[in-house]
């Protein structure tokens, strides 16, 4: 079941095409990464999904239905540029934003109390947002995004400007929401976070999709048959006849590239027969960061 499906979505702004024939699916209950360099069209895409703007052509389905005026109540959106009324009190402000999402005042109050108790910030209720620190107001912004129990949560760079403690707090909340069945669309250009928390990703550049799929599958697709070996003893200086070449040599550790057609088991077997003792044998998978840079550079050429 897909919570969100995009079909051939196109959006042009007078001179340039911001979103060019983009299609992808977000599975229900997963964390999905929307990646791309600055200006790739991520924000344009998000604005289409959040019904802020409309697509020129193509189709966006939320829970299988074309986007309509009721859908904003089922989406929670935290923009990259955070924004709250500085002169409004925390409690009043969150109640207002929750009611704009279709909650009644009573429902909003109950939900808000639960969240504020959870974050241990009940004493902020009557504080003005302008008097809070940046990290504090990020928490408020997060509550504003999730208070109406959205089915789809869209987070644009949710960890930017957060210290590690608060970042972990938000990360835990994201996982908990996921456990409860919320689907999360996570837009960023910070690859290490994506690797950690996303199951599927789509990588866009200049409005077009460069990569789309499961994170592990993508990493496998881009692997270069590299292994790292930890050992004791003397490694033969010439290894080509053993089925691999040494790329980098450090004391008691080498990075090797396995010749195509040779399996890792064969390599291990050969090495065991030599007089070195093997302490470790790991496959080196490319990081998403490397894949990202490689793909974006290719497409920009």
């Amino acid at each position, binding site marked *: 079941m897909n919570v969100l499906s995009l079909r051939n979505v196109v959006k042009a702004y*007078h001179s340039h095409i911001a979103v060019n024939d983009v299609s992808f699916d977000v599975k229900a209950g997963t964390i999905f990464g929307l990646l791309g360099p600055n200006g790739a069209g991520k924000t344009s895409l998000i*604005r289409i999904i*959040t*019904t*802020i*703007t*409309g697509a*020129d052509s193509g189709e966006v389905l939320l829970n299988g239905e074309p986007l309509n*005026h009721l859908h*904003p*109540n089922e*989406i929670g*959106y*935290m*923009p990259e*540029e*955070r*924004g*709250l*009324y*500085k*002169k*409004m009190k925390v409690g009043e402000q969150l109640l*207002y*934003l929750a*009611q*704009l*999402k279709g909650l009644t005042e009573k429902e909003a109050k109950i939900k808000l109390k639960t969240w504020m108790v959870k974050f241990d910030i009940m004493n902020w209720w009557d504080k003005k947002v302008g008097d809070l620190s940046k990290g504090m107001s990020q928490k408020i912004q997060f509550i*504003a995004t999730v208070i109406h129990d959205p089915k789809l949560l869209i987070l644009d760079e949710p960890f930017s400007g957060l210290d590690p403690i608060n970042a972990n707090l938000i990360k835990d909340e994201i996982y908990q929401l996921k456990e409860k069945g919320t689907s999360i669309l996570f837009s960023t250009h910070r690859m290490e976070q994506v690797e950690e928390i996303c199951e599927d990703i789509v990588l866009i550049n200049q409005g077009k999709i460069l990569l789309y799929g499961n994170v592990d599958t993508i990493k496998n697709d881009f692997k270069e048959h590299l292994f790292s070996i930890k050992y004791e003893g003397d490694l033969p200086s010439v290894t080509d006849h053993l089925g691999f070449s040494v790329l980098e040599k450090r004391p008691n550790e080498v990075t090797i590239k396995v010749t195509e057609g040779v399996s890792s088991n064969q390599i291990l077997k050969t090495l065991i027969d030599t007089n070195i003792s093997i302490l470790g044998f790991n496959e080196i998978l490319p990081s998403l960061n490397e894949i990202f840079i490689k793909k974006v550079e290719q497409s920009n050429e």
Partner: protein
Amino acid sequence: MNKIWLVTMREYLTRVKNKTFILTTLLTPLGLLVFFVAVGFVMSTGSDTVKVINVTDASNLLEKKLDSRDNLSFVFTDESVATLKGKYKDGGFDGILEVIPLKDSLAKSFTVNYHSDDQLAMDENFAIQSAISDKIRDFKLKKLNLDEATLKSIDTDVTIQPFTILKDKKISSITTIVSSAIGAIVGYAMFFIILVYGSQVMRSVMEEKINRIVEVLISSLKPFELMMGKVLGVGLVGLTQIGIWMILMPLILFIATSLLGIDAANMDGINTGNLPTEELMMSSNGKIAQVLAEIQGMNWYLILPLTLFYFIAGYFAYAALFAAVGSAVGEDINEAQSLTLPIMMPLMFAFYIGISAMNAPDSTLAVWSSMIPLFSSIVMPVRLPFDPPWWQIVISVVSLVLFTIALVWLAGRIYRVGILMYGKKASFKELAKWVFYKE
């Protein structure tokens, strides 16, 4: 619809609960009262030291009598000017008024000399002039063998009593004056209300854009709903403030008059500056009843709802424009100035037409601009007390309604694009393009 109401209530409540709003709303009528009392006080006091002036009058033209007034004290003396000049340094007087003999008894002009090292203040100058002028007048009357009563009978008060021919309406000589006054008050009020609350809408739009909260908001509701909620909310604040003032002003005036013992005649003097001559007061007292009758005679069942309509429609049209401009401005509030110019121009223009319509409510300019939207919301209310033809009112109302709807729609088109544009402020060319952007 429900979401518009949420925005409206937020705009309304945050404003009404604001300390500055409460203070200005409560203190403005009080401040105005204090201001008028203070002005009256300042106007009624001149210099506070008494000037002693020695008067030499060789020909006894003034018959040893000159009324002391405005801190001037006159002392008649037979000593010569030369002797007095000798005593000037420590003679206990401030100046010497030398009245030269009147040669021609019917002379149109007359000169007296004033010797002193200190100049006379303007009001002192006037006081001496009028005192001497009165004396010479009496002197001339005697010379010509005329008495005061004969002279008074020369002047005649002329009243023009108007009568209608086809219209069935009773009008009196002061209908025009009362109508003008009502028109003027309504016109001024319209202008300031539209200006003050319109620019509040603009500032509110800019605040949301600069805060970046607007992106969170419009992921919950349509930009048009947000704009309308804002315009409605600020408009309600305006109505609240005016409502409170309409209750407070007479109340404070009443309390002040009964507590301080300021009688109506005094208030009249304060309002008209420094002119409360006996004549004016007499006539104003006599005419108060007439004015009240005139005010009651106005067709309020037509004027009041129509004025309210023009206020609402005019406010909506201008506030929507202000909202559109607010959305087009970047981070810098100063940039708004050049963009508000096209809004200010018709508003100012309408205001001045309104003033001229007060004097000439049936001039071509007044008639036409009371039917042209953007002008009509100020000009027509000014003309209403003058009982304009019904067809002009109908055209005016219909055109204003249609125009306001179109303008709000247009402003909404600009607003929805503008609030998401960051960086430099937009040019008018860009604004025009935004109108035609797809959703």
